């Protein structure tokens, strides 16, 4: 019931002054987390080269964070259109099951051709799954959370159907490369994720795709009147999200050389949503930030690593995540800003920010 347009709060105003970058807060959070780790583990920042491979906690964070980064990447575009994709975890499991299933039953599991076929198979099915989500959302007009819930429920069953309920293990050097291999001393998964992130950034920012997606998510009614075909765009982002999830599934299963229909990518959809939101893309759609999402994914991964380093049960990461979700969403909520931040601004006036805001207002009203 707010009738006023959300004004930039004092925090945002200061943020603008400090270079005005939307990545400021995620970056600071990540740095704080990393520095916090040094207190517990003094060689946290050290990176060594052993056997021609990079080793170290930072490398681990990057490597284990790669699948999450990818899933979050796809999720970013979906969320930018005011949607949500709950089915990515299931897609991860299905892709892993398909690829591992294909390789394990093949006569020459070690051949590159087999692995490429397996990858193509997984990606192909992901396209179909994404298209199904996209059609439910854009064609039938089902709410995204409901549409993708279907695959979220059924997907793990499908994955287990493919693996026959077993954990399918594969011994294939080329497949191992995807998630666990090294190339030019770097973990291949990190390189792959980086490449896909850069590719997506180019695709959205060097073509008009990003602008059109932001327009559709920011104001669907206006976008229709400008002549943007939202249906195709919606289908596209869900397909893209499924593809990203499939690649993540390949990485995860390759890293552990097996596909587990039950546990591969479990809850990754939630981590991905969290990463997107922490990265500064609002759940209400519109503006998205790929850089923010990458930082968000790394924050989540660092959080997991930190909890592990602290020696508390790794599962308690969930408690931290819960608080992060609540805090980030509250800060993003216009109502919360209006109720809490403004009240605070009134009782403890900040001359700098108000001085900053006032002439700005006049200037634009002129």
């Amino acid at each position: 019931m707010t009738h006023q347009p959300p004004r930039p709060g004092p925090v945002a105003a200061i943020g603008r002054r400090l270079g005005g970058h939307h990545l400021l807060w995620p970056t600071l959070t990540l740095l704080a987390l990393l520095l916090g780790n040094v207190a517990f583990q003094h060689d946290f920042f050290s990176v060594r080269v052993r056997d021609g491979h990079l080793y170290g906690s930072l490398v681990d964070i990057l490597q284990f964070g790669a699948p999450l980064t990818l899933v979050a990447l796809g999720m970013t575009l979906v969320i930018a259109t005011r949607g949500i994709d709950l089915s990515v975890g299931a897609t991860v499991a299905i892709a892993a099951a398909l690829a591992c299933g294909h390789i394990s039953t093949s006569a020459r599991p070690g051949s590159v051709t087999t692995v490429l076929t397996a990858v193509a198979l997984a990606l192909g099915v992901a396209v179909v799954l994404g298209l199904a989500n996209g059609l439910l959302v854009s064609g039938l007009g089902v709410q995204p959370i409901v549409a993708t819930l279907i695959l979220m429920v059924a997907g793990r069953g499908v994955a287990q159907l493919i693996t026959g309920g077993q954990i399918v293990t594969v011994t294939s050097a080329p497949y191992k490369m995807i998630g666990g291999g090294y190339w030019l001393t770097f973990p291949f998964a990190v390189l792959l994720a980086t490449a896909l992130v850069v590719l997506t950034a180019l695709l959205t920012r060097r073509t008009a795709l990003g602008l059109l997606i932001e327009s559709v998510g920011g104001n669907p009614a206006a976008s229709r009147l400008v002549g943007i075909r939202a249906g195709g765009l919606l289908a596209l982002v869900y397909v893209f999200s499924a593809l990203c999830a499939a690649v993540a599934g390949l990485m995860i299963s390759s890293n552990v050389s097996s596909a587990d229909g039950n546990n591969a990518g479990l809850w990754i959809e939630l981590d991905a949503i969290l990463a997107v939101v922490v990265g500064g893309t609002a759940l209400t759609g519109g503006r998205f930030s790929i850089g923010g999402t990458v930082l968000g994914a790394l924050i989540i991964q660092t959080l997991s690593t930190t909890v592990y380093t602290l020696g508390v049960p790794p599962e308690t990461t969930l408690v931290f995540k819960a608080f992060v979700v609540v805090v980030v969403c509250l800060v993003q909520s216009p109502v919360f800003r209006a109720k809490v931040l403004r009240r605070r601004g009134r009782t403890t006036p900040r001359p700098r920010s108000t001085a900053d805001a006032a002439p700005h207002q006049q200037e634009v009203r002129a």
Partner: protein
Amino acid sequence: MVSPSTPRPPDPGGPRPRPVLEARGIHKQFAGTVALDGVALRLFPGEVHALMGENGAGKSTLIKVLTGVHPADGGTLLVDGRPQAFADPLQAQRAGISTVYQEVNLCPNLSVAENILVGREPRRFGLVDRSALRRRAAELLRELDLDLDVTAPLGSHSLAVQQLVAIARAVDVSAKVLVLDEPTSSLDREEVAQLFTLVRRLRDRGAAVLFVTHFLDQVFDLCDRVTVLRNGRLEGEYPIDRLTPMTLVQRMIGGELATLDQLSGRARREAAARTTGEPFLRARRLTRAGAIEPYDLDIHAGEVVGLAGLLGSGRTEAARLLFGADSADGGEVGIEGEKVRLRTPRHAIARGIAFCSENRKAEGLVGELTVRENIVLALQAARGWTRPLTRAKQDELARHWIETLDIRPADPEAQVRHLSGGNQQKVLLARWLLTAPRLLILDEPTRGIDIGAKAEIQKLVARLAGEGTAVLFVSAELDEVLRLSHRIAVLRDHRMVATLTNDGSVTPERILTTIATGADS
């Protein structure tokens, strides 16, 4: 702060009883914009009182203040002579003020009986007594002479019946003051008659009814007194028999009629020349049920056609059909002699038609995108995502149009939602102008923007027409319609009642008469 021009109504019927609801000096501001400035209203028992005003006059805000949706920033509300302040609709209801809104604000999934009594259901042993609920609802409806199946879900009844049910609920909550906010805008003639019978019956039982409508006939048909608002101020309060449709429209639209005569003669001189030959767009019997009756319209290249009429007369609805913003139910459109179907905006855009919606925020701009992005959006949408405008090209376009239209701040990277209304409107214009449209449809392009920007936009429209663009100009302000248009189509009650050629014979009075009476004298 009460408007000095407030005429006190003489009391024809001797000493009146005390007003059941009185508002004095009401102020209300939204985000720095003054919506109500010292507005007063008096409602007496046993009267139907019309609240009239054009767009932005402050009618809906006043109603929301009276019914507790928004608290007032200043002023006094008196109920039965006692000061009251409402924090929410419930408190207003408890004080005896019930409201029926234009869009039926009931729950279509609940039964008729429940809609009437939800929140006040008869209970037995703490549980809702369903048979008593049905009986009570049926009794209430019978009192109002309505015979309905009270167990059917509300959504299964027609809009008119839903409206009547809403009134039944309001009456049951309190029969003291009943606020009807445009209850007839989507009803047909018979349904309106049914509703009026009910309203009259309630009035005769002593209720005070505040009636908001855009239909002049209905005001003269039903109401006893009228309060007119203009630009957030009280224009005056009149007994209905002191007004004619003509004088009422004048008071709503305002403007010193004398100054309207000093219009630039350019549009008039050129009018005859522009309207000959093959029109760019020709609409025949174009219609959409519930929005606009079948109408004919020709728009020539280089011609400005004005759509005049009161708010709710169907002017926006008529314009939207020509852009495919809403799809037509019947009739046809020809563009340069070729028959076309404009089912979606894309079809219209492909034919060189552009449309600036009256609702800049909801349907025009993408608030969190920058000025540059908003400006290139239409062109980019037409090119598709695979053929992006380079950043250099975007910057060039943005800079060019920011300069041409004097958009401020002159920062292409400013978020468009932080701009003032006038500058937002210019951004919207820039978006379409860079697509070089053949026909530009402008729906209320000067509403809610400051005088300077308004004049600039008017000049721009004249220049565009001079360069050969066809323009359809929709506005509530007669003087700008008259100043700019070569021809003026007049709408009234969802019908196009006349098309006047602006050749010097058209005076503001003539348009007002046409609006008021539905015929060109």
